[in-house]
């Protein structure tokens, strides 16, 4: 009991080192400035500022969009291990995962927005619909999903928000009081109510995230019969699996970074071990499914599929496949995670996670771009696409927005549970 009181009176979950704080926000400021300039170019020059064409109409922004949707869905599914399946130790990362999932969705939607030819009409999908369009369903699923995430985050965090509001002083306490939405009780009963509702919302969220949000994003591509490379039933499943890969990796990174830089606690090695095993299992599944998909495609001897795979393996951007997807995404993490002592130490575990998080970006690029290089009909021009400077820098800026949001949240909100035993109220 007394520990909680101690913690909350000194409630300040910010960076432990001022130098780190300045360096980090300084870096973000630079990224945001550069991104801001690129976005201004995007707005004034229009879509001509991209390297997209009518042969390759989707590029980096779409790849980043599905990447962040995947990251979000993956992080969310990791959070359900804590709040629905109650796996031991995972309650420590519940809020990190949920908050990362929310921020990732914000980032994903920013990418969709900047990609629209008519950015001014971004609300049209809520005015006009098309029941046969996967995209029309998706935008609605995203809204529902973000609502679920925010609700979960609220129920997961409310008890601690109320404690801070009751015991700390200053603007943080005021903010936390606002965020409790008036439910300021810190009793055990209120904690139980929160957990009950957290679990219920999580249960709703699981099918939503798997089938609608990320599976649905996979369906968006898989239904495009004109692009045989995407047009397979396995495709949405690979989508979900690689999402879980990236989500688990992200949560591992966030957990290590937060404990080291912000909370200053010892890292829970058992938790790291469990996360590492999960991540390795997901990576193996992802690689195996991708191999199956490739085998089916190559065995079909369908010229379009074959040539698309040749583009992936040996084309202009094949380095992204070999270095990032295979090297960063699969080989490096598997090597690191295969050794028990590395898996249990923060630095190797976090770097395996980081490599995966970066590697999956290449997975997304290799999903989006290659099937748009080959023309849909023989006799039409071939595409060639490498993102333009504006596309890279806007992407950097949008990612920086996400990092900024996450850092602010991590500094202000009680993402780390205020007590080590998860299931208690103050009067237990």
């Amino acid at each position, binding site marked *: 009991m007394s520990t909680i009181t101690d913690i909350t009176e000194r409630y300040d979950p910010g960076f432990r080192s001022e130098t780190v704080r300045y360096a980090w926000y300084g870096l973000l400021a630079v990224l945001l400035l550069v991104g801001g300039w690129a976005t201004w170019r995007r707005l004034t020059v229009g879509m001509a500022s991209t390297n997209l*064409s009518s042969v390759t109409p989707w590029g980096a922004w779409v790849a980043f969009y599905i990447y962040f949707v995947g990251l979000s869905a993956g992080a969310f599914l990791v959070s359900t291990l804590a709040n629905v399946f109650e796996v031991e130790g995972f309650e420590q990362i519940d809020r990190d995962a949920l908050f990362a999932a929310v921020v990732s969705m914000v980032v994903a939607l920013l990418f969709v927005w900047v990609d629209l030819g008519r950015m001014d009409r971004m609300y049209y999908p809520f005015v006009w619909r098309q029941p046969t369009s996967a995209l029309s369903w998706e935008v609605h699923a995203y809204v529902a999903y973000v609502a679920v995430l925010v609700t979960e985050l609220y129920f997961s965090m409310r008890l601690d928000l109320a404690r801070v509001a009751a015991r700390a002083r200053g603007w943080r306490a005021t903010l936390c009081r606002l965020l409790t939405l008036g439910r300021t009780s810190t009793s055990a009963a209120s904690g139980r109510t929160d957990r009950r509702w957290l679990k219920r919302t999580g249960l709703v969220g699981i099918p939503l995230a798997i089938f609608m949000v990320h599976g649905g994003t996979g369906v968006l591509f898989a239904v495009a019969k004109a692009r045989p490379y995407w047009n397979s039933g396995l495709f949405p499943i690979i989508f979900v699996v690689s999402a879980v890969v990236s989500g688990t990796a992200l949560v591992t990174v966030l957990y290590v970074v937060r404990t080291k830089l912000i909370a200053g606690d010892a890292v829970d090695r058992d938790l790291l071990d469990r996360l590492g095993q999960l991540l390795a299992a997901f990576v193996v599944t992802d690689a195996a499914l991708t191999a199956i998909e490739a085998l089916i495609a190559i065995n079909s001897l369908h010229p379009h599929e074959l040539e698309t795979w040749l583009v992936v393996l040996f084309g202009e951007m094949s380095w992204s496949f070999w270095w990032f997807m295979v090297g960063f995404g699969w080989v490096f993490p598997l090597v690191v995670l295969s050794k028990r002592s590395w898996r249990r130490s923060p630095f190797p575990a976090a770097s395996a996670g980081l490599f995966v998080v970066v590697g999956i970006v290449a997975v997304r690029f290799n999903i989006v771009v290659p099937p748009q290089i080959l023309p849909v009909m023989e*006799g039409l021009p071939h595409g060639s696409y490498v993102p333009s400077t504006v596309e890279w820098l806007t992407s950097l800026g949008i990612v920086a927005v996400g990092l900024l949001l996450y850092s602010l949240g991590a500094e202000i909100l009680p993402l780390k549970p205020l007590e080590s035993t998860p299931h208690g109220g103050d009067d237990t």
Partner: protein
Amino acid sequence: MSGTDEPLPSVPDDPRREALDAMVDREALDPRDELEKTTYRTDLGIAMAEDARRVGRGELSSEAYWQKYDRAAAAEFGDDYRETPNPAVDRAEQTIDDEIAESLSCSVGSMDGVAESLEGVAAEESEGEGDEKWGMVIDLQKCVGCDSCTVACKAENRTPPGVTYNVVMEEEHGEYPDVTRTNVPRPCMQCDNPPCVQVCPVSATYKMENGVVNVDYDRCIGCRYCMIACPYGARYFDFGENYDDEVDGAGEIQSPEYGVDRGPRTDGESPVGNVRKCSFCTHRLNRGEEPACVETCIGDARNAGDLNDPDSEVSKLADSSRAFQLKEAEGTDPNVYYLK
């Protein structure tokens, strides 16, 4: 039809119109000089002409006019005046009857007749309206690969750089020296089951009753999903580029695609940022003209018409054993047929 007062779509208001009017005035003959050459009264001619203009402007009724001049004209022109029928006073509809038309040897027949036949045409057209399904048949044996259709299309639809509703794909078969070449022109297929329509999240692209797949530029958000879905590569994104360096005033007017006049091409305004495609020249079909590519084809390889009318040429051609569609396996059921 639209009101006659409105400027025609794609015909800009010319700022030099006043100068043009002045030119007409300059060229006009002096009425007094002209009338003096005749044996009739000059002052009467001028007075009648001026009042006739007032009748034209609606400032004077034609009854009042003839009351004023009937006697003077009869005195001046005698028998000729009495024998020439005057539709303005003789008949309420201001027409002359067949007999008189004959006696005056009017080549087009009586006005009544002309009007009647016009009505007939209009009636026939309106009967047909609403149940056509526009289709196209392209004879690959006749196509010489000259790309005239592509050029005509660019000129008609005034498409910007990078947007070409029609292309001619060239396929080479065989190995040297046994090489043959097929030219396959590719407009939008106006598919009966269009995947582009299926995927559009805002229903901005949809099939019209006449079979043409429309893009509503005012609704399209530019997500380009339809371009991903189209198996024929028939859709193009308007990146906002212009031919300003190549052609003077290239963006001054736009084609009234789908019958909508959008005025001059403006940065950041639709169709910039939208997806575009061939519309079978709907704006031309609506005024009874063939699509520009069909009209221009030098080899007469392209035919457009109503696939719902079993007697139309396109229906017959599409039924021939030579006919096929591109990518039939996609299940899109294109309304563009090719003849082997």
